[in-house]
Structure formats: structure tokens, C-alpha cells
């Protein structure tokens, strides 16, 4: 299976977050916990469902990633943009 990580948006401010190896919802993707087996993925999924039910986060998803030189890189452009922010210089 593809490597997977858990992502969501934080309830209070909507900011995109990733579930990290310390068990926190982190604003950076860099330390996201990676599931490489079906069991790991199911465990992450359960963590996401509980965090949603506990009203910590919303729009919870497991997403496919690859690891390139130690950096986590989502496979879909949409998720790369979520992780890195808008690709444009929006501050005028």
C-alpha cells in the first residue's frame, strides 16, 4: 500500500494540520506519523475519527504520500498545496 498520513483542519481556526509522531495535530507536515501498513492506517483512521468526534478537527482524511530524502511529500497536488500554502505570493 501507499504510505499514508492523517490530515485535517483545526476546529478553532480552520488551519490545516497533520497528526504527528508525538500524537499532536501539527501545523507542519514534516513530522507527520506515517502509516506503512494496513493496521497502521486503520489506527490513524481511528485517531482521526475520535478527534473529529471530540470536536478538535474537521475534514479528516488519510492521504497518500511518498518520502523523498527524508521529506514527506503528498502525492496529490491538492495536498501538496495544503501542506505548503498557496503557490502565489498573496501579500501584496
Amino acid at each position, binding site marked *: 500500500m501507499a504510505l499514508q498520513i492523517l490530515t485535517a*483542519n483545526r*476546529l*478553532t*481556526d*480552520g*488551519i*490545516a494540520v497533520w497528526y504527528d509522531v508525538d500524537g499532536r495535530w501539527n501545523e507542519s507536515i514534516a513530522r507527520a506519523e506515517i502509516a506503512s501498513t494496513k493496521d497502521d492506517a486503520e489506527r490513524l483512521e481511528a485517531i482521526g475519527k475520535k478527534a*473529529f*468526534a*471530540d*470536536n478538535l478537527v*474537521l*475534514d479528516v482524511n488519510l492521504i497518500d504520500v511518498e518520502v523523498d530524502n527524508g521529506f514527506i511529500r503528498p*502525492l*496529490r*497536488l*491538492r495536498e501538496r*498545496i*495544503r501542506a505548503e*500554502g*498557496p*503557490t*502565489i505570493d*498573496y*501579500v*501584496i
Partner: protein
Amino acid sequence: MYRYDEFDHAFVAGRVAQFRDQVERRLAGEIAEDAFRPLRLMNGVYLQLHAYMLRIAIPYGTLNSRQMRMLAHIARKYDRGYGHFTTRQNIQFNWPRLEDTPDILADLASVEMHSIQTSGNCIRNVTADHFAGAAADEAADPRPYAEILRQWSSVHPEFVFLPRKFKIAVTGADYDRAAIQVHDIGLHLKKNDKGEIGFDVYVGGGQGRTPMVAKKIRDFLPEEDLLSYITAIMRVYNLYGRRDNKFKARIKILVHEMGAERLSAEVEAEFNELKNGELKLPEADVEKIRSYFALPDLPERPEGWANLAAWKKADPEFARWVDQNVKPHKHPDYGMVTISLKPIGGIPGDASDSQMDLIADLAEEYAFDEIRISHEQNVIFPHVALADLEALYRALKPANLSTANNNLITDIIACPGLDYCALANARSIPVAQEISNRFRSHERQAEIGELKIKISGCINACGHHHVGHIGLLGVEKKGAELYQITLGGSADNETSVGEIIGRGFEPEKVTDAVEVVVDTYLGLRLSPQETFLEAYRRVGPQPFKEALYGGASAEAA
């Protein structure tokens, strides 16, 4: 402009208090997301890729300096210093915190603004010609009727859970600048020989995945019957509109499936039941609403004519701006000014807090405190004395607000696309920026003439690509962005949906493809006066297909 009465103030304040309570309960864990989502959407709060997004209605695109200053304040205090004006004459903030949204809505209410019905399956912000009340070609100002429709449709109990969202646009001018034929209902105000006002009524236009040009179902509906007739349309839609399939739920599908004739007959039958009832508009009420939109007292300023000629002679850049961005006003000493939010290489529709503050200051000083937002994502000062144009231009220039490109190839409409939007499949803004940079030369833009490029990052078509002279639709194919090109679309009196010209282009190739289309047009036009759209309608897609694909397959991707 319209001022809230006691009822309006109480209504909006009540909604803010209600939403404040809902947000508090959500943050306290007392309301789950599934229950809260429809509540936040009813107040314009979406969740996008990076954060929440707040969409604020600018009714029929009209606002004053105080309101614009409040938008600047919101950008500064609650967001990241900018906002995005949209093709629906709304503004969107991309980074508000949920916990701040009740305070934002309270701030908005203090200047008579809100976010009600900027989402959901209800009647959305009613849009209008951005030159309303000022245009020389206007029979009557459409905004009083847009305001009547706003009041009637706000939390209308019968129409808050429609099969799908519903958009109404109104124009009172000969030339349609409000794209009424791609709205669920389009109203074209006219005056008859007796000076009476009536509406040509169009139904079933729209873009999205199934673009349709609206059908005219009524000529010259009398003014007093406006609400009765619109209610009749809404009832027929509410009864027969499909709720089983989201993609077939808009009224355009109903019009298509029933046929305009049958739908019209159903509407007329319902209208006959309604027309002499309580929905009949009393002339006194219409007159009262109309008085809010009276033309400001415009003093004679004939000195502007001579001054303007001298200033234009002295400064070619200023002359270019006047020629491109200032249109004739119904008063000969005045002009209607388009302040471009499309700087070369910029983000279409974005304005910083300081730009919004400056626009507010300048509107007070030079434009009788009236500001409009166009569906083409620009700011309009509808009433500026020709004698003040030079001073206005000098003030706009340092803020990068004096780009002389209205209706030219760099005056691009673009949705937020995949840089922000949770629905998008591809980015729109970087594509707009690259095209803008490629065609940055004034001389080249002037040579090309009127050409409207419109870009959407998904099939929902917020960037109006279907009606772009050149439309670009971003799709996702095999995990990568690809852009389909459509040609020949238009959203004016002769509305047409653009034709897909062939297979799509990768992001790094799409600007080259646009350039090929433009160069092909320049090579085949009969004269510099023949616009891109006229030339396309004369020759059709074939020369463009050949130029883009040669002998290769042009099968659509």
C-alpha cells in the same frame, strides 16, 4: 444608496447574536460539525484548503466608503491583510478564525453589511450592472429592484431550502454588463413609449458543468408584478426542480427538460393566482426604495473638458488610462471609472487593506462616496467629474491601482482555484499571472483590442470560463493539472457558450497556446476594428484548431 431601517438593523443584529451563540456552542463541543456545517454556511463561513473562508455579500455590487473601510479593517484585524472580490460581486476573506467570525459579522452589521445567503440552496446575493445609475445607455437604475428582491428573498421561508442555489441578475441598460443570460433568472429593465417600466424575464441560464443560455419567457412584465412573477417562477422550480441529483437540480435543467414553453405556461398559471394579491408592488413603496438610489447632485463641471484634453496631451500614460478605463456617464461632465484590480502579473480581484482604505478615501473625495464591485472583479467609481480624473489617477498610481487594461487581454477573471478552493482541480491564479505577464506590453494589448479571458479551476465555473472569449478550464488528469481552452464564449446581449477547441494543455504550455490563439486572430481579422469575438463568430473554430494542433489530433482531453 439603501440605508437599513429599524427592521433591517434588528434582523441582522439578531442573526449575529444567533450565530455567536452557535459558534460558542460549537467551540464548546455542544454542536457536532455535521449539525453546525449548515449553520455556518448560512452565514457565509466555508472551510477551504488552508483555513475557513468568509464570503460577504455586497448587494448588487454597491458600497460606500464606510463599508469599504470596514472591509479593510476586517482584512487587517482578522485576516492576512487582503480580500478577494469575486465574480458574484462578493468579497471573500481567506483566513478568518471560526472564533472571530461572530465579531467580524458584528463589525459588518455596524456598517449595514452581512453574509446571509452567501451560501446554501437559497436565493443568493442579487447582482446588477456595475454602472447602474450612471450609464448613458440605461433606461432605469436596476438597483431599486435588486434591493426589493433582496428584501423579499432574505430568509423567505418558502425559498430557503430550494433544490439548489439560485442566482438573480438585473440590468437596466441596453448593453448587458450583468451577464443576465447566464443566471437562474435574468431581468432586463426597459421603458415603454409611455415611460412605464417593465422587465424582460429570462430563466434557466447558468454555467457550471452544464452551461445553458437562459430562455426569455416574458416580455415587458409590468413593474408592479415583479414579486408576483418571480414568486411564481420560484414556486414552479420548488415544485418540479430535481432534488434527487445535485448535478441536475438547477432550474436550467428544469427548463431544459420541461421546455421553456411548458415552464412558462406553469409560471403564468401560478402568476395568475398571485398577481392581484399581497405581492403586488405599491408604487409608493417602489418610489421610496428608488429614492435611496437617486443620482447624487452632480454640479456642472464643464472645465473638465479642456483640462482633460491638456492633461492627456501632456501625459500619454494618463491618456491611455482615460481611454481604456473611463466610460461615458449620463452627465457629460462626468465619467465612470474602472479601477483595475488586475495589475500586470497580479492576482485578479485581490485588494490589500491599504488599497481598500485608499479606495474609500478617494471615493469620498472624488466619487460622491459611491463604489461598485463589478462581476469582472474590478472596482468602479460610477460618478467622477472629468475635471477630477487627473488627480484621481495620480492618487491611484502609487498604490498600483491605475492599470489601463479594462476589457483588454490582461483584464482576466480568475477564480481562487486550487491555491485556496476545496473544490478546485487546478490552479487559476498562476495561469492568469503568467498570461498577464506575457501580454504586459500596452502596445500589444491595444493592438489586440477587446478580449476577455476567463479562468476556472474546476467545472463549477466560478471563473466564468464558459463565457470567456477565451475560456480556460483547469482539470486534473492523471494527477496533474491540464487546461482546456474554449473559444467564442460571451456574456452580453448575444450570450454564447464557448466551444472546447481540442485537447488540453499542461500548465507550462497554456500561455503559449493562448498566444497562438491571439496571433491567429490577429492574422485573420478583417480590420483592427473586428474584435476577437466577431472574428471568431465569422470564421469558427477551424483556423484556431489548425494553429494549435496542426495535423495532430485535437480530441478533447
